[in-house]
């Protein structure tokens, strides 16, 4: 099952390495990981998406994360109502006006934006849940050649009053 884990940790050198090391050491899988300082610059917020085989593994994973001395809070997002977003930037080949129009139409439907243009390429920006980005990629593959893709990994937050704070 797919899980999204939010981690609030000290913004200190070595903290990220400890989290990544933990996943490698215990043979846990990381699908994506994003990390950045929060509004409080002494703290970092991390979102990890992972595939686990059962609930017990997820529980152990969260306990192991919490055991790291740098980690303040750990919470799982998919158990409750939440918002998740991923940013994707991609370049597609635009050999002729027909393809250009088709891509523009698709981008509009998915609420993507074309952020850069060359005679041969469009660079498109798209945000949304992973499944939306996957669907957009599949659509583009039908009409053009995808040259390059970069995805940020998932950023997530719980809906409602619930908050992960220091």
């Amino acid at each position: 099952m797919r899980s999204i884990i939010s981690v609030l940790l000290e913004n200190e050198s070595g903290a990220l390495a400890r989290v990544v090391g933990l996943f490698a050491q215990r043979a846990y899988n990381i699908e994506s990981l994003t990390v950045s300082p929060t509004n409080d610059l002494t703290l970092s917020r991390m979102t990890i998406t992972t595939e686990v085989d059962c609930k017990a593994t997820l529980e152990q994973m969260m306990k192991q994360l919490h055991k790291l001395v740098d980690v303040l809070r750990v919470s799982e997002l998919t158990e409750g109502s939440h918002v998740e977003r991923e940013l994707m930037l991609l370049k597609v080949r635009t050999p002729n006006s027909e393809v250009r129009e088709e891509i523009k139409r698709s981008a509009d439907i998915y609420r993507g934006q074309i952020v850069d243009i060359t005679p041969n390429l469009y660079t498109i920006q798209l945000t949304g849940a992973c499944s939306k980005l996957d669907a957009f990629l599949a659509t583009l593959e039908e009409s053009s050649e995808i040259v390059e893709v970069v995805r940020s990994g998932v950023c997530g937050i719980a809906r409602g009053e619930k908050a992960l704070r220091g």
Partner: protein
Amino acid sequence: MEMLSGAEMVVRSLQDEGIEHIFGYPGGSVLDIYDAIFQSDKIEHYLVRHEQAAVHMADAYSRATGKVGTVLVTAGPGATNCITGIATAYMDSIPLVVLSGQVPTNWIGDDAFQETDMIGVSRPVVKHSFSCRTAEEIPIAIKKAFYIASTGRPGPVVIDLPKDVQNPLNKFPYEYPKSVSLRSYSPTLSGHKGQIKRAVAALLSAKKPVLYVGGGSIIANASKQVLELAEKLNLPVTNTLMGLGAFPGEHKQFIGMLGMHGTYEANLSMHNADLIFSAGARFDDRVTNNVDKFCPNAKIMQIDIDPTSISKNIHADLPIVGSIEVVLQQMLDLLEETKATNDSESIDAWWDQINEWRAKDCLAYEKSDTHIKPQQVIECLYKVTKGDAIVTSDVGQHQMVAAQYYPFKEPRQWINSGGAGTMGFGLPAAMGCKIAFPDRPVVCVTGDGSIQMNIQELSTCMQYNIPVVILLLNNRSLGMVKQWQKMFYGGRQSHSYMDSVPDFVKLSEAYNHIGIKVDTIDELEPALERAFELKERVVFVDVAIDPEEHVYPMQVKFGSMQDMYLSKTERTDA
């Protein structure tokens, strides 16, 4: 405010932390710290012959005293030589602070001479680590390191100290913090009140309970509570390899060690129990055997200070996070308050059953006219030391035999590498214990494989006169490896035979120690008597034992707890 250099701050911080002994080895990137040590009269430093031994000495010093062990080494190989020692301490939750030198900050990343990323290399086997990039950070890093190492589930902490940070020419204001708190780290000590109530109720209603006591009970100094609870409710008690001594080995309620080489009665009691109450044990694979067949009828109750240890291998029906000492005291208080007790009739019936299993006398062994049996050696050691010695061991058959045949009276008396299984641990461990308790007899029970993994420390013993007894169960082979090869590899003894074991008597004499060779059973007791009488000398007793002896009982692979080989010819599940 007092002005000190980084190097002086390291030494002063250790002093202010109350550290009296440190174990280490100098080198280029810690020369300034060593110079500061030279000028301190409060810290006693022991120079080892290999850094791994320094860590084992500090580790055993900690296991024997409950204090934090401290190590100082140089960068690069000095630091990496510590890794096995650090991993050993990590697996057994032993508090250590390891200070390692590092190349100057402006050289980090340049592959400078003796540069190793110690923080990176040690990361998987430390509880936490610090890298000091300025001298001002040193006192707070050291304070935090000792705090983290010794609280919660203890463990080793590494502090990396680049050379320029130690510079004796640059002085900074020094103040050692009185206390420290970390917003991201606050171990839970008391158990949840509701869980305590439920635990007491479960314990009172159990008809076939077993108290399963691990090393966590020793670390938490909970032996008093373990004993009180066990006696109050007449519970059968089993200790893990790491828990030996937490409950007295000669107590009538002690049913022996459990697990791979546990007693028949301990393993059968576990398998047939209706309640397993684990206090500071972690359901290690050497205890559970096949987890799918583990204790089919038992409700599992588990106390541990480390939430990750709970339900990791075996699901706990009733988990309690907290210090063993505090939680057991909470349970005792509740029992006292409610005056409730368990049903003595069903407990008596349970004891009748256990005593039937006990009657099998699974540790009985056949004596031989031609060979000394390893069991005889440990029994003799027990007799000669009256059960009062601190016993350290290496890893292998001798370790299991010592665990089975020396009933430990008290906690911190049995010092061994349980989790990591580190050969070479025994001798430096004995030295660490002897430094902590110069007036107590300390013996290292070892094998001819293990002792050669840190034999160079005989030289350290000579330099500082650390009079330990080394008791070598010499079977001229890697006994446990050979046992497995005989049992599971068609007897093919691939590289488990030592073709050239040295003359240990001569070797001891070369280091100005006393060596005694024992070839017959008649020589054994006088040799041990003499070894412990020579209180001022290191005595190396080399006992030629039966090379064909196996350790039994032994659990059958992939079986349940009760599936065991009881001898070369008998097994329980056949």
